[in-house]
């Protein structure tokens, strides 16, 4: 099967040509399949987030290619990339990044476009994620885990093909972090969505099909994950 997302010799250098230039990502070759959960791990400053923002069409690479669903991202106009992010990508951020003045369902609603821009759709997603009773709460009235679940609902509202999650458990305690990862894992399996998770938290790597290790912007190691044993949707594979 053709991978959903491919990178070829992907590289990113900040301030190229200057004395203080920083090579954040170098020669990364990746192939992410449909429904595959990938964990990108590495120490701080290793280039994980730069890689994720390039994959998410938010940062232009300085070298190499990103091919999504057979189309090279470099060939897209700025408007085309915006549309791609809106229709095909979902984002989950480390610090939730919910709009503080909006309640839970409004935070999901505002991210919906076209037919997905409805209160019913937002409430349905939040209910599926166990927040049916909390839809009218503002982010400050929600716990960290609840806020991240609202962020997950927001990422899912446009039914994306791939979700990019940046340190999704960084601001959560171990128990809640585990719950959030189980939830992501279930969504990946149940809805067949590809998920790219960037983290340096070793405890959550078991949810992935594959774990990629990155150091100094280079892919240094790849391990097979334990997704098939740990996923709450285990029977899915039996």
């Amino acid at each position, binding site marked *: 099967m053709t991978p959903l997302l491919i990178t070829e010799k992907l590289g990113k250098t900040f301030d190229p040509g200057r004395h203080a230039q920083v090579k954040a990502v170098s020669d990364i070759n990746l192939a992410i399949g449909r429904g595959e959960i990938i964990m990108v791990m590495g120490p701080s400053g290793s280039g994980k*987030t730069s890689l*994720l*923002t390039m994959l*998410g069409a*938010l*940062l232009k690479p300085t070298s190499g290619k990103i091919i999504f669903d057979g189309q090279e991202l470099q060939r897209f106009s700025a*408007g085309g990339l*915006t*549309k791609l*992010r*809106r*229709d095909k990508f979902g*984002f989950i*951020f*480390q*610090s939730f*990044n919910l*709009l*503080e003045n909006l309640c839970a369902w409004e935070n999901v609603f*505002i*991210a919906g*476009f076209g037919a997905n821009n409805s209160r019913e759709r937002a409430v349905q997603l939040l209910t599926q994620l166990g927040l049916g009773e909390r839809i009218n709460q503002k982010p400050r009235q929600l716990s960290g885990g609840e806020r991240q679940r609202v962020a997950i609902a*927001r990422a899912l509202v*446009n039914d994306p093909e791939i979700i990019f999650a*940046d*340190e999704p458990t*960084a601001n959560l305690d171990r128990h809640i972090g585990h719950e959030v990862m189980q939830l992501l894992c279930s969504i990946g399996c149940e809805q067949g969505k590809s998920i790219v998770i960037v983290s340096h938290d070793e405890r959550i790597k078991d949810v992935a099909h594959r774990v990629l290790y990155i150091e100094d912007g280079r892919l240094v190691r790849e391990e097979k994950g334990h997704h098939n044993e740990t996923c709450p949707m285990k029977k899915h594979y039996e």
Partner: protein
Amino acid sequence: MANIEGVKSVVPFVSRQVSFEIDGKEAHLNFIGDDGSGTVKPYKLTQGTANLSSQEIVVDETFAQDKKVVIGDTLKIDDINFKIVGLAKGGNMIVYTFALMRLDDLRAILDFSNNNNYYLVKSDQPELAEKNISSEINSVLVMGRQEFLDNNAAIVRDSFLPIAGVLLIIAIAIGVAVIGLTIFTSTIEKSREYGVLKAIGYTSSGLYGIALIQSLVSGVIGFVIGYFLSLVVVEVAQRAASGFVHEVTTINVMWVLVLTIFMSILASFIPLQRLSTIDPAKIFKA
């Protein structure tokens, strides 16, 4: 003049601005001489009487309030003491104020002997009367009722509208700056949230739409507050300053609303550059 074709009746009268002093300060009144026929009278008498004896006058209540004079007080004009016997309203033209005294008193002050400087002509055929008077008496300027009213209105308009126009332009500039800076400040404060919206698929024009809505909402809230505040200010100003004239029509209010919307749209352009340069990739930095 009474025999000219088209003229029904003629009432001669005298009117001229007279300057005098009240407590050492210069004061001005535009006196009209009353011949006792009842043709010349105050627009609306509010206190006292308009049946004047010699050395009695009626002044406008705006003048009375401004100069702190009341019925029974005397004003020394051309070394003659005139007693205020009546107060009237409707005679304040902003640039001058009308007052009434007997025709013979006014002639004496102005040294007019038996001369008149105005004639009130009544006619059933005003256009014919105007034409005939103009052709038969060279020394008079004939003005129809509407022309006379327009001339008086023009004095006020030409004196104050340019100033009001400049104030209006300043007010619009301040309005645009205040709304614009409010939205700009809000945009800076909410840069991260705008970045999130950009990341999840909002276009720059979509974000501009949000700034425009914020700007319009701010403008309309300011308009509503300003409208009710203006009612209070008018009330306070009328009590504090004599002769404060105001007129607020529905059309005026609608124009202000249209101007407010225009200002809000203009102000929403101020954060445009900022919105377009927000980098959505930066929201990944914790």
